[in-house]
């Protein structure tokens, strides 16, 4: 279970931290008026100040607003069940390559998580990978990442 307040605080902290990073970085570049005109850090500095200021207001409002529920426990579970395998898939790309990672991701999402028979999920995975290969590497000549595994196997 997640309340709206917790979400507001999390988001406010993320945006606020980003704002601080932008401010620090723009001051390093240099901001203000110089003989060459407006310095490169000026606009980003302004943006950073706006981000930080807005985030502080949003954080403050999070404590004032009446509490509300953002995600029920079962909704949170479903979001996690979608997001975590997806994250693992993205993390696996540099090692296994996009094609192999896609196959395992689909097998996992369809058959392990949803009990689909393996022959069906396998078929879906195969069709997906072949379509991607044909569309990108053949039709549009974009090489998708083959990963460490692909390199080891000589692709």
């Amino acid at each position, binding site marked *: 279970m997640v309340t*709206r307040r917790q*979400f507001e605080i*999390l*988001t406010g902290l*993320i*945006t606020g931290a*980003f*704002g601080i990073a*932008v401010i620090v*970085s*723009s001051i390093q*570049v240099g901001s203000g008026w110089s003989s*060459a*005109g*407006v310095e*490169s*850090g000026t*606009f*980003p500095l*302004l*943006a*950073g100040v*706006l*981000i930080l*200021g*807005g*985030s502080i*207001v*949003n954080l403050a*409002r999070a404590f004032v607003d009446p509490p509300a529920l*953002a*995600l029920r426990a079962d*909704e949170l579970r*479903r*979001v996690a069940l*979608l*997001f975590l*395998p*997806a994250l693992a*898939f*993205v993390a696996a*790309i*540099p090692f296994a390559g*996009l094609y192999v990672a*896609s196959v395992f*991701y*689909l097998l996992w*999402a*369809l058959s392990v*998580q*949803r009990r*689909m028979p393996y022959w069906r999920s396998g078929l*879906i995975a195969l069709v*997906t990978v072949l379509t*991607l290969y044909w569309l990108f590497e053949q039709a*549009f000549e*974009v*090489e*998708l*990442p083959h990963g460490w595994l692909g390199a080891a196997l000589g692709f």
Partner: protein
Amino acid sequence: MENNVSELMQGFAIALTLPHLGLMVVGVLIGILVGVLPGLGAPNGVSLLLPLTFGMQPVSAIILLSSMYWGALFGGSVTSILFNIPGEPSSVATTFDGYPMARDGRATTALATAFGSAAFGALSGVVLITLLASWVASVALQFGPAEYFAVYFLAFSSFIGMGGARPSKTVVSLAIGFALAAVGIDTVSGNVRLTMGVDELVKGVSFVVAVMGLFGIGELMIAVEDEMKVKGVNSKVEWREVVRTIVHLPRHGWALLRSAAIGCWMGITPGGPTAASFMSYAIARRVSPRRDNFGRGEQEGIIAPETADHAAGTSALLPMLSLGIPGSATAAVMMGGLMIWGLNPGPMLFIEQKDFVWGLIASMYLGNVVSLVLVLLTVPIFAAMMRVPFFIIAPLIFIVITVGAYSVSNSYLDVLLMMGFGVLGFLFKKLDYPVAPLVLAMVIGDKAEDAFRQSMLLSNGSLGIFFSNGLVSTVMALGFAFLLLPLIARLWSRRRTALGRA
């Protein structure tokens, strides 16, 4: 005016060729698919297709992308009406009356009403562009950097003033977009900035990657939250009923005109189609003679949001073409495409790229007709597609978005950024942060900054240049007025409640 007509005819000569008609059909079909599938919307659909257009002629590329946009706008209404699931955020308001009507066994009437009013809305938008775009561009040709900055300022402050979200949230979203636009090499001085020590970020953060994460992953995570149970109604289309409904549509002439006007206004000022459809529905519910019937399958409850949605979607291209300021998130992505293809969006297009501009405008007339026909023909097919369970569609969409993010510049870092934007998009959507300002600021942030810095060079560092003549002062003053709008509105309502109590 005659000049516009002859230019438009020239445009039709470009758009009415076999390859371009083919691109329209392909674009519209992909668009309907994108519009129908939850988790894939027009902005990220257009971004997914964008890398594939890099080798094309700009006219052909924009015809493909804009046709896809029309298809997506139409497709979003199909699922709203048949399944009570809005395929696009801008068709949420269509569910209010569209689904009850379809549930009562009048699915064909609901669909035909939606498509008919959508086509009317789109047509009003295109006519507006035909009549006004080149005039606006000719005015904008007189603009110096200060005037440009003032217009950008007006666009951004109208988001804050009229966007409807909490102003502090709009500001955060806008400013994040600005900061992201600044990452990489500063085009004026050549300095590297905001890379936070990551060398690969010197090339900047691509708005395409941001859109894919913010809209794509964010929407998938929202969609999975309430595991959708598709309870579809009969999706058979009865042609006689389609014709009867469309022939009878002019009876609602007043509602059509009012909704089209709202839509055009919201499209030109960057309010976007989503806000337009909600606003149009709310106004219709207040003023319609059949207001008591709203929410129970009232035809005007479909006409109002659909007309406004499409009018806004279409007219959002007017400021993009003539000023270089996109009126919606999808228009922002298309404008980014224009820059990648080597065109400079803005008034010079009307002089240097006449074929491109008028070819696009002509294709908008044709594309909407093509969409109307194709969407009617394919409703049963796409409705059947909705019966594929979401747990199968979700990982497939995820793979497509990942590949899309990678293919923007063959970079794995982009995939990681896309994931980060996805989490941010999910949080933003949950907490009612507007996402469109972020995308808009990412696309035109650099131009706004350039305009500001050039003005300052001209004035030798004095901010007075933004109030140096009537035009620029008026636009700046309007911008400040929009910024103050939420404050005034709050004071006003407080006073009214105080008066009401007294």
